[in-house]
């Protein structure tokens, strides 16, 4: 019985790996093509994948646009916004789950309902505000709209709600302030939620297009997602170069995922907890 189950398990696993492989074929194709010359990519005859034979596409990447600069800009902005959003979400998650004050539930209801406000409603007035304040071409304009994350507050409120009140009371009896309790008890115990939120927030900021497109006009301050689109419009026939730039553009999010993946599902599980 056990060996039978084992064999069935391996067959199912193999089947799933085949499906998984089909799922990531677009990435494999992109990666292989990024090492192929243009003539090879657009060839109509021959195999499914072009023959990789050159690293020229990567060597020349700086020629067409300032790829490294944009990459570094995006890395800086996305990392900064992720750290800030995690911190504010954790503090507010703590406040909403463990502290009592008048209007708490109403305010939390407001936080939740902000998740359904379409970007289209707020973006025109925000664009006008930030432009009037002279914040175009500054990273302040990119960071400020992401200081609060309703999704993050929601996740942290759920997970911190699961931390026992006795633990917090005991710390208070020992004379610890709320700030101290937050940093030395709540934050370390929330590592799963931090992991889940880190993955999501980093990805959302890394792929954000419209807001940096509106706020940043200086080519050297631009972010990668916007630069990639411009690059594709301008050099639409240099497929090798486009494949190479796109391949590099997805690396940071994959790295962030690999760092945090162990706690990721657990983080979502406590977040959507029942």
């Amino acid at each position, binding site marked *: 019985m056990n060996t039978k189950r084992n064999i069935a398990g391996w067959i199912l696993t193999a089947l799933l790996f085949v499906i998984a492989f089909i799922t990531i074929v677009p990435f494999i194709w992109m990666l292989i093509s990024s090492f192929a010359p243009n003539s090879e990519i657009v060839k109509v005859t021959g195999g499914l994948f072009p023959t990789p034979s050159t690293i020229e596409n990567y060597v020349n990447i700086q020629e067409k646009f300032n790829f490294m600069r944009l990459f570094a800009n995006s890395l800086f902005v996305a990392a900064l916004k992720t750290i800030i959003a995690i911190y504010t979400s954790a503090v507010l998650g703590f406040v909403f789950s463990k502290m009592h004050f008048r209007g708490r539930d109403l305010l939390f209801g407001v936080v939740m309902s902000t998740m359904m406000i379409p970007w289209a409603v707020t973006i025109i007035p*925000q664009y*006008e505000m930030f432009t009037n304040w002279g914040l175009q071409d500054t990273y302040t304009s990119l960071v400020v709209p992401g200081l609060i994350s309703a999704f993050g507050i929601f996740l942290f409120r759920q997970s911190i709600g699961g931390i026992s009140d006795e633990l917090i009371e005991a710390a208070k009896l020992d004379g610890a302030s709320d700030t101290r309790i937050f940093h030395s008890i709540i934050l370390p115990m929330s590592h799963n939620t931090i992991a889940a939120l880190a993955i999501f927030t980093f990805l959302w900021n890394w792929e954000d297009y419209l807001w940096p497109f509106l706020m940043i006009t200086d080519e050297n301050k631009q972010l990668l997602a916007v630069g990639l689109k411009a690059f594709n419009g301008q050099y639409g026939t240099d497929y090798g170069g486009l494949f190479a730039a796109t391949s590099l553009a997805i690396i940071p999010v994959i790295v962030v995922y690999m760092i945090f993946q162990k706690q990721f599902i657990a983080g979502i*599980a406590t977040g959507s907890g029942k």
Partner: protein
Amino acid sequence: MKNTKSSGSVLSKIFSLRNIAVTFLVVYFAVFLAYPIFKAFAGSLHDWNPLVGTYEWVGLANFAQILTDKLFWTSMLNTAIFAGVSTFFRIVLGLALALLLSSKIVKCKDSLRGLFYMPTITPLVAVSFVWMWMFDPQFGMIDRVTGLNINWLHDTKWAMPAIIIMTIWKDFGYATVLYLAGIMNLPRDVYEAASIDGANGVQTFFKITLPLLKSSTLFIVITSLISYLQAYVQFLVMTEGGPGTSTYTISYLIFDQAFQKYNFGVASAQAVVLFLFTGVLTLIMFKVSGDTDLS
């Protein structure tokens, strides 16, 4: 709130973590959400164009204009199809995969999960380009593998299905993860009882698993519909609304009106309609399911 021993002084009471955090939140919402929403409603009643510098009261003229505009209704219909079909397949594929991945006999779960999750964790601008090339009629992979001869993104019939296929591929992993989390929280004993009672796999799935995953499903449906109503990146990158108007969606239309034509007034009116539509849809979802334990 009980006072703590160390924060005895009045000053530290006023500047407690709670007060600072709540004040910050309220001020932030007032400045960056409440005011912009008010401004959007006000702007929708004005002829508002920042390039010409106009901001003149026109009453409901913008609404009259968009509601009689054929493109607006085409965009609404396209959005409904896009959001409905994408959400449906996201749920079905996500749940099927989550059930397979949570099966006890499957090995190498971490690697499998990582592979299946790859489309979801890669930036949308980047994968939109990858799929533009996938759909290319000359060297693209789709036509080559399937033997079809479809010019996907340049054919009014096929452009929307192409974008929907890409979106489902990109997004099913999100549903998988949420379902996996939901399955982790399922009570064991119910399943033991069911198997003692001789329930088969299909019965267990429809009578126990699916109902118990109701709140996961509801959460995925609501967040999917809300985010698909707002989707614009794949349309901007892959088709720019074309060919013709076949892939114009409401959010792409608003982007187009606001930041390509600078008709802020008309765009605000469209945004207000989208806002009301999203709100009503969310309310209906909660009412229909009779389930409010999400928050």
